[in-house]
């Protein structure tokens, strides 16, 4: 069995498999699920090529990827064909399929920390497929394990094999998952959001590793991701999915340079770019949960929709870029693209200092190092400040200290002329009102048992006690209208709303208190790009109107640039660099900032 592998490796140009998806359709029969979740997906994975499958959450991209290798969850009906060198994976007996999985076909899921068995040493997990599919034992097995770990860049492989998953960082866990996927020299590799949730620098390194492996081993790769910029840099071909259908597919460079489908155009414009701080405004509405077969699924949200778009279901047509596009007006619109806008900055950032943070340090008990170490900055009234850093850099902890959720271990903070030296509970109510915090995940920051009205009523009751019941109700309706939610939302519970709608409720709650300082903690990282811009725009508009200063915390440097006047870059609890936004990008002073900027996938670099 070992010989097989050697031949593959020495042969240099192994044949490589090609996987052809033909009219893959997935249905989930059951109440409330009329349409298919994936409709007539036809794609080809070529050896040595990476095919990107892009789309927002719920568009069916993961379902497609799983259906492609013949994996189906209970209750799923999959039709069509998925052919690997003459073999239809969908028609195979479960036994035969299992002989292919982990062998000729490998799959890597989004979260390696969940995919790896936490109670088993990684070496044993790597040995399982090698034993089963290759029959490796003893020294040959050990040698192959070390080879694989070296290939994916795990330092000191001998020792690493004996460790448990939790002893590795998130990026290393994903490398280990990749090593397991690659251990039997697969022909087909399916990656389902493999770097989502990892830091940009880690993401860049794993992407480079993947590209190298696909080229060298002639593997046909399907890379599923919501991140168009990432796919633009990594893939050879790109397919964009919307509501279970491929709306556009073609060579990546050509699609990025001249997208034909309005959805692709908008998605591209919505991705923050480092060469342009402007964003295309978000699009209203949410994608349909299943495929729409009687008209164009995107028509209700499409700014270019004509009458025909609402009555005719467009068929895939050849596009100028050499791929296909599913849009009736693709040719008419070939030169049209959505215009990016800058976020309104109504007032000149004042001279009056609003917040002073001076040599602040936060060291949690039992933590090996301080979460925040000697951080100092000033914020002017009405200024928009971005704080950027990778996970664990202490950026969120700064917000927690300012809002009074934790006390700094050392240091001095002042807001206006009030010293911030107590927890929120002990602070004057007026101070709590004027500093408002919006959280990353609106699923968690809105009490699931409270109606939207109850949620919005709370700041009014606490901070605007002088208002009567009728005035409060009027204010709630006014702010709902301001964040473009219908008044009927007031009686709904949070779980009835989409993620973007929930985040708008959270923003409305913050602004009902009429804050002077708004703290935004990764407010868009749980949202799809199509609503990300809308939410940022809303924060920008409301802040500009009320003159509130904003601190925007994010791991995404390009995103922060769209709003912030000034940016602070953090690493390991310390400030690495602090500069005006444009200056930071034009002339980054520290090596770390340069590394961060270099790691951001670029759009339109082609």
């Amino acid at each position: 069995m070992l010989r097989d592998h050697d031949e593959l490796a020495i042969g240099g140009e192994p044949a490589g498999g090609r996987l052809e998806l033909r009219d893959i359709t997935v249905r989930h029969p059951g109440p409330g699920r009329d349409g298919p979740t994936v409709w007539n997906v036809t794609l080809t994975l070529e050896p040595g090529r990476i095919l990107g499958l892009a789309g927002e959450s719920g568009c069916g991209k993961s379902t497609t990827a799983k259906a492609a290798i013949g994996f189906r969850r209970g209750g799923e009906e999959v039709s069509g064909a998925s052919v690997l060198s003459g073999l239809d994976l969908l028609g195979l007996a479960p036994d035969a399929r299992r002989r292919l999985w982990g062998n000729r076909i490998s799959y890597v899921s989004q979260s390696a920390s969940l995919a790896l068995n936490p109670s088993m040493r990684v070496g044993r997990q790597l040995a399982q497929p090698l034993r089963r599919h290759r029959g490796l034992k003893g020294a040959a097995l050990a040698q192959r394990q070390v080879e694989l770990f070296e290939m994916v860049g795990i330092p000191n492989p001998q020792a690493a094999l004996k460790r448990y998953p939790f002893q590795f960082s998130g990026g290393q866990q994903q490398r280990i998952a990749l090593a397991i996927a690659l251990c039997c020299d697969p022909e087909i590799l399916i990656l389902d959001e493999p770097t989502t949730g990892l830091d940009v620098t880690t993401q860049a390194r794993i992407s480079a590793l993947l590209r190298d492996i696909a080229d060298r081993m002639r593997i046909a790769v399907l890379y599923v991701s919501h991140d168009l910029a990432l796919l633009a840099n990594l893939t050879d071909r790109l397919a964009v999915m919307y509501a279970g259908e491929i709306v556009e597919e073609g060579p990546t460079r050509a699609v990025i340079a001249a997208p034909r489908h309005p959805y692709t155009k908008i998605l591209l414009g919505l991705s923050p770019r480092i060469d342009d701080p402007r964003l295309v405004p978000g699009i209203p509405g949410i994608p349909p949960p299943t495929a729409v077969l009687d008209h164009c699924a995107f028509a209700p949200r499409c700014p270019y929709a004509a009458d025909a778009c609402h009555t005719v279901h467009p068929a895939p047509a050849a596009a100028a870029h050499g791929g296909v596009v599913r849009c009736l007006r693709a040719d008419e619109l070939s030169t049209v693209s959505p215009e990016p806008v800058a976020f309104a900055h109504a007032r000149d950032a004042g001279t009056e200092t609003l917040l002073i943070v001076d040599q602040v340090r936060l060291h949690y008990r039992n933590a090996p190092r301080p979460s925040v170490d000697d951080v100092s900055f000033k914020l002017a009234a009405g200024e928009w400040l971005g704080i950027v850093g990778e996970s664990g850099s202490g950026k969120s902890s700064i917000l927690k200290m300012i809002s009074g959720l934790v006390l700094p271990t050392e240091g001095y903070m002042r807001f206006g002329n009030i010293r911030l030296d107590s927890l929120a509970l002990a602070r004057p109510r007026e101070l709590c009102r004027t500093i408002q915090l919006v959280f990353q995940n609106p699923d968690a920051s809105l009490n699931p048992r409270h109606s939207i009205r109850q949620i919005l009523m709370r700041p009014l009751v606490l901070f605007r006690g002088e208002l009567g019941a009728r005035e409060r109700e009027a204010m709630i309706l006014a702010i709902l209208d301001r964040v473009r939610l219908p008044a009927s939302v007031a009686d709904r519970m949070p779980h009835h709303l989409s993620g973007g709608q929930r985040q708008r409720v959270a923003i409305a709650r913050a602004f009902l208190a009429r804050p002077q300082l708004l703290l935004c903690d990764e407010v868009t990282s749980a949202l799809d790009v199509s609503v990300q811009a809308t939410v940022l725009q809303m924060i920008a508009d409301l802040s500009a109107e009320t003159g509130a200063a904003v601190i925007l915390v994010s791991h995404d440097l390009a995103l922060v640039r769209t709003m912030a006047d000034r940016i602070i870059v953090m690493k390991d609890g310390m400030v690495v660099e602090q500069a005006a936004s444009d200056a930071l990008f034009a002339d980054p002073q520290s090596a770390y900032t340069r590394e961060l900027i270099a790691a951001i996938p670029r759009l339109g670099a082609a």
Partner: protein
Amino acid sequence: MSIAVLQQPGEAPGEAPGPGRPALWRGLMAAPDGRVGVGLTVAMLLLIVFGPLAAPYSPTAINLAPANQPPSFEHLLGADHLGRDVFSRFLWGGRSILAIPLMAVILTYATAGLLSLVATYRGGAVDLVVCRFFELMMSLPALLKILLLVAAFGPTTGVLIVAIAITNMPGASRVVRGAVLGEIRADYVQAAQARGEATLSVVVREILPNVLGPVAADFALRITWGIIALSTLSFLGLGVQPPEADWGLMIQESRSSLQKAPLITILPAMAIAALSIGLNLASDALVRHVTSQGNGRR
């Protein structure tokens, strides 16, 4: 060309909502065991509440003439060794067996439940003391605790309620503590803290509604245990005292004549079983519904 998409009104919110409480009911009735549980419980509750109205005789009236009588038209289930009508005793006998455990569990949650809610939220030394206290209580066997209390203060209704409540306290405290710990780091709690909400407001307004699900399920389960504990006590002669009509007591009094008159023993035993099983199935379904909902929420 630019697009003015932002100006459009907000989209319609998601799927049509089901109001909060009926959703709990639907979840309970979704599975077959939930339906059986609710059915059994409701049937037994009807029997216990309205049964006494249909009783033909007083449950405690002694009439030696028909003593040890087999079933007849006058005495549908016959009469016991003191000539009391078995059918009437059966219809009356569920009251104490439901009321005492119910009161006991209410008492448990009103004391240990609330204490743990606040102590867990406050954390630190308060939490530590409360935790150790209940762990200490847990180290004594339940039956021993009840027997000690009943032996010391006599088998009155009040003592029985307190005794059963005390045996339930450590467990209830753990359920509340676990549920609160699951919510305490949630962003909505932090949001409330950052607003400067008072501690009581955070506990009652924010956390309490989110721990009610697991508490409700545990509540129903504890009533079942209470019923079994009380029946055990009555059987041992330490629970409900003669001449009260009580299912546990009826079993104890009649078991010597099990071969001659099996119905007097079997009927109350089956009633206890039906009530316990019904409550158990219903609370199981409730637990399942609450946990699955919890997963969907986050």
